[in-house]
């Protein structure tokens, strides 16, 4: 088992003929993901790499292939439109890799998805992977191992670092989810934690947060109230100065609640084992399992 993606995932790639879309489609096909369709307006009728049919619209792609999940690699200026289109086509799980979507675009997208019952992961995220089952996004498959640890993170390469430490120590993963570094995202820590709690094949969760906002504190409250599985937490940005955006649009300390110190304190209060550095993940997991 796993969360959100598995062997039942039938993926459509929005922006399949673009530079990033085509590169990562090949990576996902190579990993064994069931990529059933691609969409690029004007390229309908083509067949990508001789295996994936390309359609002009999401409606056509879903009607022809019964795709249930989409991944978006289109440029930021049209990404919100791609999310709307996926939701209208009846896609239940939409993963948006695109970075740089204006936050006001997201204020209109999110209620639209909510009304249609569609889940968005991202934007500005590396996607997710259920090792040896399905990879939807850009997380390198070779650093992951199948196993029983859930990973949820706001970051990309920092997630790879921690997954690499886990795999190296023999802790495989049920699913790794990158929820994205933007201020407004479709799927929060709490959604993922709740799914991991319900997943019979996840024994513990590693949660990687960063400065900015209060999602980690809300997640800490949730963990205290609703989770029986052990959670190990990390917060990036302990040395970040206030008022400066640290790369991710959402990673900015505004007010005292956005600091790493405040988030780590909230973790500790909720009984979460707090890593001081990424390499602590293995020791803490051993203690808690």
């Amino acid at each position, binding site marked *: 088992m796993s969360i959100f993606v598995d062997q039942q995932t039938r993926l459509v790639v929005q922006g399949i003929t673009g530079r990033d879309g085509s590169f990562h489609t090949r990576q996902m096909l190579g990993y064994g993901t069931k990529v059933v369709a691609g969409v690029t307006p004007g390229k309908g009728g083509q067949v990508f790499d001789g295996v994936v049919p390309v359609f002009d619209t999401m409606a056509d792609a879903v009607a022809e292939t019964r795709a249930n999940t989409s991944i978006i690699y289109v440029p930021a200026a049209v990404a919100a439109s791609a999310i709307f289109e996926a939701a209208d086509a009846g896609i239940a799980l939409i993963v948006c890799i695109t970075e740089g979507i204006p936050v006001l675009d997201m204020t209109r997208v999110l209620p639209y998805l909510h009304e249609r019952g569609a889940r968005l992961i991202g934007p500005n995220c590396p996607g997710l992977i259920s090792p040896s089952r399905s990879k939807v996004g850009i997380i390198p498959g070779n650093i992951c191992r199948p196993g029983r640890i859930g990973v949820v993170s706001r970051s*990309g390469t920092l997630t790879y670092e921690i997954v690499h430490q886990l795999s190296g120590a023999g802790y495989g993963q049920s699913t790794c989810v990158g929820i994205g570094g933007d201020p407004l995202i479709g799927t929060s820590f709490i959604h993922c934690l709740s799914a991991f709690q319900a997943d019979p094949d996840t024994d513990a969760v590693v949660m990687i947060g960063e400065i900015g906002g209060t999602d980690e504190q809300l997640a800490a409250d949730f963990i205290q109230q609703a989770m029986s599985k052990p959670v190990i937490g990390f917060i990036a940005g302990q040395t970040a100065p206030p008022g400066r955006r640290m790369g991710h649009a959402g990673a900015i300390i505004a007010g005292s609640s956005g600091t790493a110190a405040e988030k780590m304190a909230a973790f500790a209060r909720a009984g979460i084992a707090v890593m001081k550095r990424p390499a602590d993940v293995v020791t803490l997991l051993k203690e808690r399992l």
Partner: protein
Amino acid sequence: MNLHEYQARDILRRHGIPVPPGEVATSADQARAIAARLGGAVVVKAQVHAGGRGKAGGVKLARDAAEAAAHAAKILGMTIKGLVVQRVLIAPAAEITAESYLGIVVDRASQRPMLMVSAAGGVDIEEVAVQAPEKIHRLAVDPRYGVLPHQALGVALKLYGDLTRARAAADIMQRLYGAFYAVGASLAEINPLATTRDGALAALDAKIVIDDNELTRHPELAALRDTSAEAPSEVAAREAGLTFIKLDGSVGCCVNGAGLAMATMDLVKYYGGEPANFLDIGGSSDPQKVVSALRIITADPSVRAILFNIFGGITRGDDVANGIVQATGQLALKVPLVIRLTGTNEELAIEILTKAGFSALSDMDEAVKQAVAKARTA
């Protein structure tokens, strides 16, 4: 992107919000001429991207044009929170009887634009939020409909007992939301919204922060960027497509990915060092970016050692390695380099580096320890 007060005032004025007259001066003579034209007492206000301008001596009242020129001469060239004042705004001094606060931000919790108002205006709203949160009234705005008239009036009545004034404030709130949305702001605020002696409302000070992600669709706003108000290294980094923030330490950091970059800085601190910067070379595979990154890091004289921390995903290790080799050929490095590199095309990268006389580590902790030690002994 932060706008200056005078730029924000222009935007509000264009959206029909009552903003008193005022012009920008870059010299004492200009300040004198503007003050003479406005007549009477004026305020001379430093235009820098920093809060607390008044406390720093960057805002002065002048009784006449001569005094305005004298204040401008002092304020121009003054340094406020590390930023040199290049311009002053000259505006008429208004006699005011009350000050309110109006602001709109995107609220992460409700995932909506949030209108925040308070009758305790004219001061730092963050302080009000901490000390007297009950004095701030909030309205989560549905972006599909904007601020509806009855919602604005309801909020305005919490600030003003007088219906005429409340209606005027409600109109300003709706217009402020219009401006916020039109320019793609992440923050728009009027502080204070002043009640003048004659009972009218006026936006005396304004602040607008534009979402950087909106700038490609708003070239007219991108053109308002004042690069003289930013650190030159940060301007150079942005032009090279890098995200760079200068800090005070001695270990220069060059990392792929924002989260890993922050974690690397934290680890430098954990091992007793101080990071000199945040730098994310991004997910692209372009050796030229590495060259630009090294140029920017080495331009900082307080850097005593440089640490590369690369976890290849989209970023290919061999591209970074080529960038390092190219850059060190062009730049004549004076400080030691510690390279940690793993992930995509790791073997190829290590081959390239070894040929050029560098070695690479695969463990992040080990690399950080070495960089901290080298920065200390260098």
